[in-house]
């Protein structure tokens, strides 16, 4: 891995020590390292949440089972959902935003490198706070969407909901800070010639995602603030006896929650839109249409939130309006699928692991989308919501969609990030085990929902016909787990003896494949001039219109590299994140901790802000 120090102008080459290496990761502001931090953390949380899922499946494999108690099961489904969404899928997407966006737009880093590091450390503290609940035997148990008024102090007197509430607030701050960063990066740091429409589609989908994050998270921030005030300070926002409406929580939550599901899927869709063209050796079919569809999905995604509330009794007008809006959103989503098919059609398709996962995405997300259309119809939804049918639906779109898409990205960009190829054979085994295991786990759950099995139940009676397919589903879940072991084995094996990748192992189309693997700290020795979305492809092959491929530019000189300025490391991001964590967790311990933590936070914010502000009488930098 290229260490920043070696590339700093005027720096001496250093022999790395163990603690020196650790420190360099703690104070890094390099987007590539931050991406790796996000990715590794996300994967660990993914495994934890996966184990929670496996334990649930063990409990449900037989009726009237007693592998875990009711309380534990309720904690498991709460943590499984919360962890998967906020600590696995979102940060894994963030890993790709961090690593790939600057590379894809021809930039050397993001707009605010220290803020970027701060986002990561805040995310980690949020994940740790949420999991600290295990140490205090106060594991959240209100479900991942924590409906009021079950979450009130009256009905949830322990600290479990507090851990959940505060953990999510911290994670929200992290996501929003990163959102501001990437918005500015994408708008303001594209290489010369890269107009918005020449941006790679992954960057576009990430761009829309950042808008969703910064505009949707405030709603859940407010929802959680109201809950916090109810629980800590006795306000009445969700108190029915005082006229408060528990549905206020649902509205605020889902105004966030629906854009959130697009936040979860758009990056994966962006990855698929990069992988398919590379392996079909054709451009993305209808790329502008795919881009506009992404924008429409993002925009209209703010108008459908109450389709999660069809059973609460909003009245026929609201039901009808949200139903129509939801069906409308299906159109751009479907259009994207057709365009992906169009990309494959007429191509020369090379079957490699990244492509398998993208194909799996298309196949599984289509199925999830079709069950979604059923949910869009309130009369039908009233039978399906809150049953295993909707559990099947969202796992098809979130696992069959997002997780497959993220694995596709992992296999695709692994050579760029690590400089080594992952093993193709093991990758193929991983894919098929996961594909089969996933379908065996979740397809039967459609049936279970249709024959009346509600969700979030820790057990069920044996005379309802649910037994056999619950057992099958459990077997599938363990197959999926096995597939992850294959992936982990692949990573370990190739870390040691993997084949060297070189800059462009897949014959790619976009800028990231024009630089070494792994990239030097400054990414591009010379800032590229961009003429097309698939600029690298054009450089290599021309496109039939321009005539011969472009002549290769003169090699980069050492002087050019010496003139590159990269932002130095900083310890304020991690320190500030720690101060914030101390302040917020003080709400669970003592007000003194909140006050002291708050003052230290303010101090560190000031130090962070003036770190590069010149001293009295000095010049800038």
């Amino acid at each position, binding site marked *: 891995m290229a260490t920043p120090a070696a590339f700093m102008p005027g720096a001496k080459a250093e022999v790395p020590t163990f603690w020196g290496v650790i420190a360099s990761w703690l104070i890094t502001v390099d987007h590539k390292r931050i991406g790796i931090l996000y990715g590794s953390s996300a994967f660990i949380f993914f495994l934890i949440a996966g184990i929670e899922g496996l334990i649930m499946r063990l409990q449900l494999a037989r009726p009237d089972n007693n592998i875990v108690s009711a309380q534990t099961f309720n904690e498991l489904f709460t943590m499984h959902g919360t962890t998967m969404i906020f600590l696995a899928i979102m940060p894994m997407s963030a890993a790709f935003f961090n690593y790939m966006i600057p590379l894809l737009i021809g930039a050397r880093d993001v*707009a*605010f490198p220290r803020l970027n590091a701060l986002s990561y450390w805040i995310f980690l503290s949020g994940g740790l706070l949420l999991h600290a609940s295990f140490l205090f035997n106060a594991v959240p148990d209100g479900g991942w969407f924590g409906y009021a008024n079950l979450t009130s102090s009256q009905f949830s007197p322990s600290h479990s909901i507090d851990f959940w509430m505060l953990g999510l607030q911290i994670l929200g701050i992290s996501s*929003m800070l990163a*959102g*501001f*960063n990437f*918005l*500015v990066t994408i*708008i*303001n*740091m*594209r*290489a*010369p010639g890269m107009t918005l429409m020449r941006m790679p589609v992954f960057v576009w989908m990430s761009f829309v995602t950042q808008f969703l994050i*910064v*505009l*949707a*998270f*405030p*709603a859940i*921030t*407010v*929802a959680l*603030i*109201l809950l916090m*005030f109810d629980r800590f*300070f*006795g*306000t*009445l*926002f969700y108190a029915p006896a*005082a*006229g*408060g*409406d528990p549905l*206020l929580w649902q509205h*605020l939550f889902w*105004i966030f929650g629906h854009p959130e599901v697009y936040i979860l899927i758009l990056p994966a869709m962006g990855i698929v839109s990069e992988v398919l063209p590379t392996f079909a050796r054709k451009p993305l079919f209808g790329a502008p249409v795919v881009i506009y569809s992404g924008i429409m999905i993002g925009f209209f995604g703010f108008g459908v939130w109450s389709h999660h509330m069809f059973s609460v009794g909003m009245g026929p007008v609201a039901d009808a309006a949200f139903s129509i809006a939801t069906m409308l959103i299906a159109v751009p989503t479907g259009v994207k699928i057709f365009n992906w098919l169009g990309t494959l059609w007429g191509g020369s398709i090379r079957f490699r692991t990244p492509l398998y996962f993208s194909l799996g995405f298309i196949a599984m997300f289509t199925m999830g989308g079709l069950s979604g259309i059923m949910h869009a119809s309130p009369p039908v939804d009233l039978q399906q919501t809150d049953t295993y049918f909707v559990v099947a639906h969202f796992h098809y779109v979130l696992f069959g969609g997002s997780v497959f898409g993220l694995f596709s990205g992992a296999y695709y960009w692994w050579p760029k990030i690590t400089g080594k190829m992952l093993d193709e054979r093991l990758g193929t085994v991983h894919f098929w085990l996961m594909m089969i295991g996933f379908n065996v786990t979740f397809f039967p759950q459609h049936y279970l929902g249709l024959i009346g099995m509600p969700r979030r139940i820790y057990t069920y009676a044996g005379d309802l016909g649910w037994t056999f397919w619950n057992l099958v589903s459990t077997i599938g879940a363990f197959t999926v787990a096995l597939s992850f072991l294959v992936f982990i084995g692949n990573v370990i094996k190739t870390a040691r003896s993997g084949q060297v990748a070189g800059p462009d192992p897949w014959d790619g189309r976009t800028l990231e494949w024009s630089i070494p693997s792994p990239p030097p700290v400054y990414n591009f020795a010379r800032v590229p001039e961009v003429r097309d979305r698939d600029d690298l492809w054009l450089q290599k092959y021309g496109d039939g219109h321009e005539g011969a491929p472009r002549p290769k530019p003169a090699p980069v000189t050492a002087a050019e590299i010496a*003139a590159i*300025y990269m*932002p130095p490391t900083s310890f304020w991001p991690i320190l500030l994140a720690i101060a914030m964590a101390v302040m917020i967790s003080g709400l669970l311990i003592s007000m003194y901790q909140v006050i002291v933590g708050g003052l230290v936070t*303010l101090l560190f914010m*000031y130090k962070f802000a*003036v770190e590069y*502000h*010149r*001293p*009295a*009488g000095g*010049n*800038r*930098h």
Partner: protein
Amino acid sequence: MADHAATHAVHDPNIGTTGLDHRKMGMWAFLGSDCMFFGSLIGTYLAYKGKSISGPSPRDVFDIPLTSYSAALLLASSLTMVLALAALQDDRVKVAARWLLATAAMGLHFVLNQVYEFWTFVHHHDLTLSTSLFGSSFFVLTGFHGAHVTGGVVWLLLLVGLAWGGRLDKRDHTKVEIAGLYWHFVDIVWIAIFTVIYLIP
């Protein structure tokens, strides 16, 4: 030193390919987000308007003259903020520092008025956070706005401190400009809150 400056004249790391400053753009993104934040809080207030089942009503407790004075203060402080930025862009650092101080002082006055208002509600009208939906939504909405103003005051005072320490001049106009964007936003949100809470019956 000369090439160093030249490099930076050519490539200021804060200016992006659109010619706009990253930090300004970032502030706009943050303000968009904060819009949704206050929108959700105002929405909550409106949802619960008139739905309290007990406790004093808005008409019983509001001191419209005082709050109007406060609103005017905040509006005026936006003017002094503009003057501060203009002065700084003219490299009149001491003048700019004075206008920043005036802005901060008016903001502080606003916050103190609000503290006084809260105190009278609690002690003279028995209206607290947990009295009624009105109490809850009023204090949380205006309280978070007040917290935003307080944060802004601290920010402005820090800028004043930097100016007095000789660490702020014309080159830093973007930093003051984004403080100004934040301040104007807080002012505009107050106009919305003031209208919804105090003016609309």
